[in-house]
């Protein structure tokens, strides 16, 4: 009996070693942006801000919020090297909360972008074409963090954006899904200023950095499905959790479930201003 269990254990340990299949791309540069956004379009006071990162290599890039990056890297170091839990919990508790839990990979050779997000327990991704052809280049220039930036305009997902890019950094890339200019986008904002990205730093890695995320564990679904799942979860997390098999028991508590749901949906209804107003 004992031998039998050991054999099983060994087999499992073996298969898990071979199951690790990470995308082997190394990023050489990192652009850091400060993203200012308005979470409730009807409330001018609802402005929040958080840093977002763009990792760049010659033919791939990866965009995500700093908090998300910290979470990913923490989990990957924990799993791989069994670092001290004390350190882990300490750092973990310092990671700020983010409104953006997704990662966007842009692959130039494939001309595709992958949007990956973990919603509650489930990991999902969808793919889109990378193309962004309708940029209108303007003659106007200005200086951003000592780089000379030139103006360009585009309409994207229901918003009109103004971008400032620099040819001094020859990455045809930018934050979020923005791409396709002859140089890195240093600043981009929509005409209502609901989403405003500004470069705060640009660094070269002394050693190329590998991505932490294993995209294979994310299930490919249609973009509309992903948006639907996200909306379901945001609108009514209690039902979504229950649909996921989590048992919630409100019996006997001073607050009924319907009240809890109502209160939650009130607080969530203030999140009414997604970056993509129109999705195709």
């Amino acid at each position, binding site marked *: 009996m004992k031998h039998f269990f050991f054999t099983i254990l060994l087999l499992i340990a073996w298969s898990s070693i071979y199951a690790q299949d990470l995308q082997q791309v190394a990023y050489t540069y990192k652009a850091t942006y400060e993203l200012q956004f308005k979470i409730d379009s009807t409330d001018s006071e609802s402005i929040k801000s958080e840093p977002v990162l763009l990792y760049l290599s010659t033919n791939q890039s990866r965009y995500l919020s700093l908090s998300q990056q910290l979470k990913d890297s923490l989990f990957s170091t924990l799993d791989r090297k069994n670092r001290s839990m*004390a350190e882990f919990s300490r750092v973990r508790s310092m990671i700020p909360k983010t409104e953006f839990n997704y990662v966007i990979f842009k692959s130039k050779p494939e001309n595709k972008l992958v949007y990956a997000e973990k919603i509650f327990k489930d990991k999902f991704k969808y793919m889109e074409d990378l193309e962004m052809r309708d940029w209108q280049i303007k003659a*106007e220039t200005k200086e951003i963090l000592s780089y000379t930036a030139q103006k360009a305009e585009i309409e994207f997902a229901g918003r009109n954006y103004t971008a400032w890019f620099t040819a001094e950094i020859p*990455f045809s890339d930018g934050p979020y899904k923005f791409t396709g200019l002859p140089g890195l986008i240093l600043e981009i904002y929509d005409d209502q200023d609901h989403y405003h990205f500004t470069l705060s730093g640009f660094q070269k890695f002394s050693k190329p950095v590998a991505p932490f995320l294993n995209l294979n564990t994310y299930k490919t679904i249609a973009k509309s499905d992903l948006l639907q799942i996200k909306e379901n979860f945001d609108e009514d997390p209690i039902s979504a959790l229950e*649909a996921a098999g989590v048992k919630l028991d409100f019996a006997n508590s001073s607050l009924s*479930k319907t009240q809890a749901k109502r209160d939650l949906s009130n607080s969530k209804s203030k999140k009414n201003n997604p970056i993509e107003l129109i999705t195709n």
Partner: protein
Amino acid sequence: MKHRYGLIVLIWCWVSVLNAQVILTGTVKEEANKNLSGAILTISKDSVSSILAYAISKSDGSFKIRIDNAPEKLFIKASYIGLTTFKKTLERKSQELEIQLRPSSEALKEVVVKSEIIQRRGDTLSFSVEAFKDKNDRVIADVLRKMPGIEIKPGGQIHYQGKPIQKYYIEGLDLLEGRYSLANENLAADAVSKVEILENHQPIRVLDSLEFSERASLNIKLKNDVTLSGTAKLGLGATPLLWEANVTPMLFNKKRQFIASYQSNNTGKNVANQVRDFSFNPEGTTYNIAKTDWVSLLNPATPPFSQDRWLDNNVHLASANGIQRLKSDLDLKVNLSYLNDYQQQQGSTQTTIYTPQDTVSIAEAIDNRLFIKNFQGKATLEQNTKKNYLKNQLEFNTYRNTQRGMVQRTDAEIAQHLSTPFYGFKNNLDLYKTFGKQLVRFSSNTGFSESDQFLKVRPGQFEDVLNAGNPYAESLQNIESSKLYTDNSAGMTKMLGKFTTTLKLGFAQQKESLKSALVLEESDTPLGHAFQNDTQFHTSEVYLQQSWRFKNTSETWNIRLGVPIAFKAFDLEGNNSQNLDAFVFEPSAYIQHKVSAKWELSVSGNLDYNFGRLERLYPGFILTNYRNLQRYNAPILEQMAQNYSASLNYRNPIKRLFVNASYSYGRTKSNLLFGSQIDPNGTSILEAVVRDNYVNSHRFNLEASKYLSRLNTSVKLNASYNISEREQLLNAALAKNENTNFNLNGSLESELSAWLSLSYSGSLRFYNSKLNTAALQQLNTQQHNAEVFLYPWENQYLSLGGEYFKNSLTDANRNYFLNLSYQYTLTQKKIDLKLVWSNILNTKNFINASSSEYYITQNSYVLRPSQVLASISFSF
């Protein structure tokens, strides 16, 4: 219109082509003539002016740039990361270019940001209370309940992502340990700035790098360094005169915290929940000072719904808790609580007992009064550093419970009086120390308890057995019992990659003693040996426990294995002297596998041994309640249980569908069979007989839930089916007993609009019992609840609920309930006014039927009458 624009565009294009359209084409190559994709080509007037047009080279290295209104000279630039930039000035004409880029070591200009953003944003993996707090929220529990992932169970236990939390800290101090409901339900939400969730939190710092914790802890961050907070509530109602009071002040600072509470009511609210302990003890509790009641009154079965509807109480609870940080990492805390409750129970039972020869029916009307006095406390010294962990906890628990009961039967009226005082002390010491990469732990748990109980029954029962068939006035059952135990162990924990292994060696000793005598009033001298006990029971145990845990990186496999071995020796002294030595091996395995994003499978199996406890080892009869005489004149019980289970989960978040199916099988082998001798007057005598016997049970369970987005409605269904077979000894005859149980539950929740929501839940239950081949009565029950919530205005809400219960044995019309509640909030002053009218129809009794293997009981329980309670509450 369209045409006109088209025309303009056409003309404009034609003009520009005529004027100055230049098309540049070509390829970009790397050194070894390799085509280069992704190179950026830009055109400007000169090297300093802005870009006019651009292109990015395709995968074959080709590019095409169209320049409208091209100037005289064209400055072309081709660049790529890590390669030198190509620059050239061209004439204004369409042409084809071949561009080659050479490697370059030149790095791009950097702008360095300091990564202090993390520190700056610091301690904020936390829920901001402001973001979740609503106008109606008073105490922190109201806010916690709404945070995603957090749920509060009916008893007050907090769960995070489906698992109970480990610790409830206030500013990092663990004042209340498992009794955190007291703070959670009384600390004003306004005093709290943040709720921090420490996921995978290991509260013992020594274990940090060794033992991965799956549980989360919670830390309450307060707004001010010194906080004085609390809640107060006062309610009055009728009928009879009802009151409800709660004053809970608390004081917090970084080094000292204090919470006191006084609560009282006679409205049926169980305040004991607030001092209930939710401490998590992973080591298990084989040895403890749990209270054992040897004698009891006959209780009517309590209704299966909220206590508020039927508990007839008069309770006072006082609690005081303090913690003081003596020096860094060394805390001393003291927790004390006193509960005084007077409860009344009224009801009647109609019991039908089926025996192979006969059917016996007993009708009883019950009127019980319970007086509960409980005083408990503990003092804890805890040191928690990276190298050492020390925790010593001294605990005491005392009860002075007395009960009086009156049972009315068709032929007699029987008074009962019992007293079950209890004293218990225990000390728990845990010491952990690291040696390099290993952790060594030592723990010692010692306790003592004593309980001298009596039961008086008037007039005396069991005349045939006890008094040669002559009636007598009173019987008195006296019991003296005590327990002393010590359990000590030393262990080691090591982490090897993805495996964690734990080894523990320990020994335990327990000495229990039981003295009992049954006395009839007339004689004053105890009855013979058959009705006396003077028994000592010693348990000694040496154990070696080894366990492994494995989890792979992607968490698709999770495996736990345990191979504990133990040597146990039991020694019983008294009329029934005997020894038993046993060597036990109790392996257990649990395997969980995530097959895909939607499917998850888990399998488990284990083997367990159980041995008789003193509660089932006394050779002399004890009158445990007025109609039950019990003894176990038999060897020590030995049981071997095998359990296997498998479960399959399906989860589709897109369709919002969840299904779980599980099956479990258990087979238990025992060396003893317990048999009842039932008299026509309903009294029974329980005895044990040596005979190997088996109990087999199967359980099937299916659960599904679906959310219908269009209707804003969630639907849940649950079906379960159980079969168990066992051998039963009834009036000295062996009977084969088979029970089947089928349950069907469904619920529906719907938010019809912003001001109206509905909920419904219902259950159907079918119980079937067979003795040998004769089918006993089948029992069906059903239960339905429905509630409507109305939110006519922001600060008001109204709810109306109805309940219906029915079983196949009774006439259904009386089991209806209706409740109404209305709340008005004075938003500005943070005061809630609440009016609750419960049991509007004034349903007097709850009638319920329950059944076990060989009897069916029909219970009637007197409920709280229709009552109205108005209350005012505020927090400060």
